[in-house]
């Protein structure tokens, strides 16, 4: 009886630990990469439709304050925002960090001096954090 209880107890503890580990692994391996890329795409979709006009040069503090493409440069959104500038409150733990930089068309690794020249691309980089852990950094090129 005692031996059976001991085996059963050990087994239940082991099973609970294994299932918890598997659940954590699922969150790390399955949910996190998909969520990270989805949040980055929300910023890309928003950036595509924003005017390229010059503003005050300051990054937006919230989604509602994003009116120009320039407002995204240097912005950090926590909770993250959707392409329609809504706050995604159910992903409160996540952060979108945005950088926009003009780069040379011939070598997009090099920064460009004139952001409005035809031989220039805009490089949009969205880094997505979960808590303080970086879950991914994604790049798109856009027309100036």
């Amino acid at each position, binding site marked *: 009886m005692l*031996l059976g209880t001991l*085996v059963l107890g050990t087994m239940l503890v082991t099973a609970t630990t*294994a*299932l918890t580990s598997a659940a954590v692994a699922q969150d790390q*391996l*399955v949910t996190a990469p998909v969520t990270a*890329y989805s949040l980055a795409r929300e910023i890309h979709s928003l950036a595509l439709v924003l005017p390229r006009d010059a503003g005050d040069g300051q990054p937006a503090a919230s989604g509602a304050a994003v009116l120009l493409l320039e407002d995204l440069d240097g912005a950090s959104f926590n909770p993250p925002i959707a392409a329609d500038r809504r706050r995604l409150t159910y992903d409160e733990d996540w952060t979108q960090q945005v950088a926009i930089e003009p780069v040379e068309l011939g070598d997009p690794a090099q920064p460009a001096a004139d952001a409005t020249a*035809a031989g220039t691309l805009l490089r949009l980089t969205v880094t997505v954090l979960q808590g303080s852990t970086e879950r991914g950094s994604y790049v798109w*090129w*856009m027309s100036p």
Partner: protein
Amino acid sequence: MLLGVLLLAVLVSTVCLGYARHVVIAASNAEAAVAVQQAEGAADSGLVWAKQSLLAAGDRTVRLNVGSNAQVAVNVVDNGSTLRTLTIQSSASGVTQAMEGSLETYATVADELPQLTSSARNAIVTHPAVVDVVGSQSFSATTLTGIIYLHNGAHLTLTDCIVAGTIVSQPALAGRWSPADCTTISLGGSIVIESDPALAGCSIVAPDAAVIGDGSEALQIRGCIVCDSLSLTGWGALHGQIASTSVPTLNRSIDLPGSGREPRAWPAALATGSERIGRVSFPRPVATPAQQAAIRTFVFPPDTP
């Protein structure tokens, strides 16, 4: 009792292993799903690159990294005067995307002003009717015919004139100039500028020139204007396109018929060097009969535990 415990142990172990397998498969699927979307994003970036390269008259073939873990290869091939074939191949984390499409383009102006083609330059040099303008020269109540040729640094003033030809500057012909070579064209009264048959569709080709109206000008300019700056405060109509280094200043009484609608072709005498994309099409690939037969007879490999 012991048998019951063992049975329970087997049951719990099965549940744990099943869930762990689910996690492994789901992780693999998630990695592939993200890679597919990143490859799509890289292809999207490749299309943007092709669009900008056409505008900047840049390279037509390139292979570049989009961020740290995605690559894209772009190739644009001429397939007619305004038709291009675009091939994009992108990859991310081992997943590849490929697409081939057609681009319909039209000539436009980007960083550089349009330039005279070599045949247009020859036509100017050999033109039988050239009116040379040297220094400051004024014409009033007259009709000028042929090529009105502004030498370096010339100042042309037209008042109540008809130009049955084209105004061309020496810098336009040479393709280069210094600040001292720049010309000016002043307009007043009733002004009609058409175009010479040798430069059909071109009214003013002077990329160095400041074109200024004195406020009294009543304009009908039939062809396109290429100049450094354009400031017209009178009234009338500019029927052709305008290409200027600085943003033109036009009185709202000056009409721009045809402007702002669909793209208009530039005159054959001018080369813009830049193109914009009017239409993009990516035809759906159709499997060949052999591919269709191979799909029908494909046998999936057995699932390996």
